[in-house]
């Protein structure tokens, strides 16, 4: 019958009109600036640098300025300058650190290759997407102070991945201690006159790999 389909169509739209006032399934709009989107865990856009603590981000960067990411970056958006001196890293080992670490987010294509190649778990993908700037050159060029974010933040945005990384780092640290202890024991056994500095690394607390907690950095060696 002519008109039946028309009336059915009108009923559908009328249901939508009324339903949008009381049925959340029919009214799904989130008004963005007021309501921030709940991003899925796997969401990523630009890289950030992981630091162990929030208090001293520049002192506890995991990055050792090996420049692998700089070389691998397909659009060449990472710029690193190595430091002349060395600073102790989270494990207390003396390392080179990045004196300059800059990412041009205008160029970055969010491919995550820097994250894949980093042997130190020092660079990870962030979820901060509102990075609009009035100056497209300096405003979008992020330096290491802007890029550094604590491990706790990493736990917030990618909990699963972050606890995996923490567990792996803790295991590596334990293995290194074990090796150091064995080496020290061997050294102590061989030339009776032991060198106390080699075994100086006191028990580094490495058991804190539970997600959400920051593994405390090893105390800097006081003996040197």
């Amino acid at each position, binding site marked *: *019958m002519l008109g039946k389909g028309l009336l059915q169509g009108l009923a559908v739209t009328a249901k939508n009109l009324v339903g949008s*006032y009381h049925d959340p399934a029919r009214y*799904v709009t989130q008004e963005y600036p007021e309501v921030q989107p709940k991003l899925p865990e796997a969401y990523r856009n630009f890289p950030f640098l992981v630091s162990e603590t929030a208090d001293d981000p520049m002192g506890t960067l995991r990055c050792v300025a090996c420049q692998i990411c700089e070389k691998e970056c397909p659009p060449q958006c990472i710029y690193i300058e190595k430091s002349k001196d060395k600073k102790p890293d989270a494990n207390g080992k003396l390392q080179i650190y990045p004196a300059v670490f800059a990412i041009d987010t205008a160029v970055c294509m969010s491919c995550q290759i820097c994250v894949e190649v980093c042997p130190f778990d020092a660079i990870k993908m962030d979820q901060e997407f509102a990075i609009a700037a009035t100056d497209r050159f300096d405003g979008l060029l992020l330096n290491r102070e802007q890029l550094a974010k604590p491990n706790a933040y990493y736990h917030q945005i990618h909990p699963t991945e972050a606890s995996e990384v923490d567990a792996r780092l803790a295991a590596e640290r334990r293995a290194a201690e074990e090796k150091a202890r064995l080496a020290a024991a061997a050294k102590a056994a061989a030339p009776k006159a032991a060198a106390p500095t080699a075994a100086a690394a006191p028990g580094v607390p490495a058991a804190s790999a539970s997600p959400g907690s920051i593994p405390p950095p090893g105390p800097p060696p006081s003996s040197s």
Partner: protein
Amino acid sequence: MILAAAPASPADAWLERAPVLLRDALTGWLPDALRPWVAALLSIATILGVFGLLFAYMTLAERKILGRIQNRPGPNRTGPFGLLQPFADAIKALTKEDIVPRAADQVLHFLAPVVLVALSLIGLAVIPFGRNLVAVEMEASVLYFFAAGAATELAIFMAGWASRNKYSLLAAMRALAQLISYEVPLLLSVVPVIVVAGSLSTTDIVAAQGGWAAGLWPHWHALTPWGFSAFAVFMVAALAESNRSPFDLPEAESELIAGHLTEYSGFKYALFFMAEYLGMAALSAMAVTLFLGGWQAPLAVLEFIPSYAWFGVKLLLLLLGFIWIRATFPRLRIDQLTRLSWKFLVPLALVNLINGGVWAATADWTGAAAVVRWFISALGVVVPFIFLARSLSAGYGPRTYRYASP
């Protein structure tokens, strides 16, 4: 706003007489020679103001309702609930650059939107908005209204022609084909009303719809079988006449580059929109007048609400219906459009003409004969509808899908 009807009892209410009293208070101190002129100017200003605001808030209501129907909020940033949006739109349209193509006919290009708005407005002069509220009292006001409405087609063709753009011209010709096709059922559906009411004057037609059968059933034309059929044909034709979805193919935003509006920008473009909404409002006001009892209250107990409020409510309901239809139906193709008019609406309106004539001839039937009268009239609507619908959809059976299940 000329005092027309003899005051009845609800007509004496203060609210009912408020517009006339206000008019008299404003013009009372003038010399007698000037008074009708100032009163006419006042009614023009009132119509412009009321329908200008109605246009502004119709655009907002349309966007809000379309949004809600599509599960989104619609404009809600400008002012509380987006209530200032129409003014923001107006400022935007006014400050935009007005581009006129070098090859265009400068005078006609400028004149087309002006003429269109003017012609859309002058129809409102003969609508009785309330018991004593009609700007121009005329013997043949229905004829005048449709003559003014038909002249808008000229303005649309003017826009297409003056742009000197082949797409504008083609679209204007399509618009003409559509408007002329639908002018026929529009007018044919009005004829039975004139036959039954026995007058071409809008005030008389409204007066003829006064009163209630058995104290409950209003004597509105839309509430009789022939009247309902005529009302339906009128509304479909009115949709097409005002270029509204699903008959908006002259400007089909998503397919053509806005048709005859291609070469218009800034405030002239806004004027075309204004004309569309004013035309829609004018045709809806005419539908209210002809079929929905004009300013008459639906029940005797509700007569304490002033007549112009009833008119406003009915007008708004029809306009909301236009928006609802726009949100629901997809656009027709030009051949489907003309086929619907010539093969369905015109025959239906012609049969309805006879139906209305029979109704007018049997006006003195009472009691059991009145039931027979209603039955005959209903038969005169349902039978042609079924046969015409069958012939219209013959050969267009349900579509079979080869690769997808519907």
